[in-house]
């Protein structure tokens, strides 16, 4: 009963949203170049389903790889900043500055530096845009570890590595997953930025672009919805991982 409700509630919300969307387009009698309605999207998917699969996969795998790099690199930077006060002071302004640069401006630069390496470029942008929250979360998680937690193991002669592995790392996991949920959506933005700003014939961004060129407005909306679908998919994979690795942090609802 509980599981059934967990799926039914968000499903109902989505159905209501689609109905509302259809209704608002119908009431206003908007043409599809102004706002396509959900019923306009079905023919678009039916016509280009194979392209959605191919391009969707390209977007998905490049986002996931970018995200994985962000997890490794972000955790590493977060660890360095979490353990060393000096490194934290040194790296924070650099990181904030880097994060403040609009990634849309980095796209052409990167495309020039690594000219022709489209997959690498796309992965890099996805990584760059998404590692920041992970670094911050890990560094805050580690640096706010209460000294008593360290002392219970240190007093027994445990090594720094043991303390990290047995206490600091698991204690940081809830913050880490919180940041990863933000990073997932950011990584999609990164991938699509590269696909749209520097078109190279790959990914859903390219499909969006061709919809624009051919004035196929329902196709453009269909791409947006496909992106939203991939985002939700990846988000819930992260939620699943969080349940497995940091489920203990979830308090039973009273």
């Amino acid at each position, binding site marked *: 009963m509980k599981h059934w409700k967990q799926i039914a509630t968000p499903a109902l919300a989505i159905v209501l949203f689609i109905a509302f969307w259809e209704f608002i387009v119908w009431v206003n009698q908007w043409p599809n170049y102004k706002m396509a309605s959900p019923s306009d999207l079905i023919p678009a998917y039916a016509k280009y389903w194979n392209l959605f699969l191919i391009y969707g996969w390209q977007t998905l795998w490049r986002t996931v790889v970018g995200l994985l790099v962000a997890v490794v690199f972000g955790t590493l930077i977060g660890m360095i900043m979490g353990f060393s006060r000096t490194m934290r002071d040194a790296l924070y302004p650099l990181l904030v500055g880097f994060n403040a640069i609009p990634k849309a401006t980095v796209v052409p630069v990167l495309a020039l530096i690594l000219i022709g390496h489209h997959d690498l470029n796309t992965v890099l942008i996805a990584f760059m845009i998404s590692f920041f929250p992970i670094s911050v979360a890990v560094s805050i998680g580690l640096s706010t570890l209460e000294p008593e937690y360290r*002392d*219970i*193991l240190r*007093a*027994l*002669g445990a090594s720094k590595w043991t303390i990290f592995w047995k206490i600091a790392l*698991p*204690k940081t996991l809830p913050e880490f997953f919180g940041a990863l949920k933000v990073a997932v959506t950011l990584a999609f933005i990164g991938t699509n930025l590269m696909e749209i700003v520097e078109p190279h014939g790959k990914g859903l961004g390219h499909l969006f672009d061709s919809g624009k060129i051919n004035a196929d407005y329902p196709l453009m909306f269909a791409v947006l919805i496909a992106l939203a679908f991939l985002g939700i998919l990846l988000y819930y994979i992260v939620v699943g991982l969080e349940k497995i690795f940091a489920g203990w*942090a979830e308090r039973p609802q009273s």
Partner: protein
Amino acid sequence: MTNLIDIKGVIHAYQTENGPLPVLDDLNISVPEGDFCAVVGPSGCGKSTLTRLIAGLMKPDQGEVWLHGEKVTSPRATVGMAFQNPVLLEWRTILQNVLLPLEIVPNKMTKAQKEERGRELLTLVGLEGFEDKRPSELSGGMRQRASLCRSIVHKPDVLIMDEPFGALDAFTREDLWQTMHRLREEEPFTGVLITHDLRESVYLADEVVVLSGRPATTQHVENVKLGGRTDLEVIYTTEATDILHRLRHQIEIAQGRAKSEEAA
């Protein structure tokens, strides 16, 4: 007779922005094997620093700390620690929390033996049936019981406790005092108990050391002899009340509110 814990002429200062802040000044404490020593003193007099020194987590600027006839220079596995905050790991069950030290301290116990040991201790403190619960499912008193089990699971020679019952309500605290006596009967260890509660110190300890205000030095040592009684009523006997009075007076001296007889 050698003492298990010997603190000899320890001087320590913290470096702050306004220069060194002396916290311990010529501190001397000796605890014979098997004894329980309570350390009381005004707030901020360096009691917690003392626990970290005994545990080998810090080195004193001057003076020496000896455990079991060996000079303490670094942490050692023969020490157990308990704090006011039970610091249980939320992602582990109660039993897994209790067994944590056995994952660090070298030992030849099998997994089954470790679990048996953990369960035994949990039963001893009245946590039977809570082995597989998460810390968040337990009350404050229960968590502190589990924390105590963890601090002695590896059979340490020395148990260092830094106000372990400070955050508990009065009745829970009394329950835990009795648990402490039960633990000491079953699991002999030498203990240092830092506390603010004079009744607690008299009820639990064999000797009570009163520290002076900062920088702390050994101001007074009170031997507590209550005839081996461990029932709570013993706190209200004349012997105990007399000791409490003397300790109260010493604390007032430490706080600078009363003059010591020697000085007067």
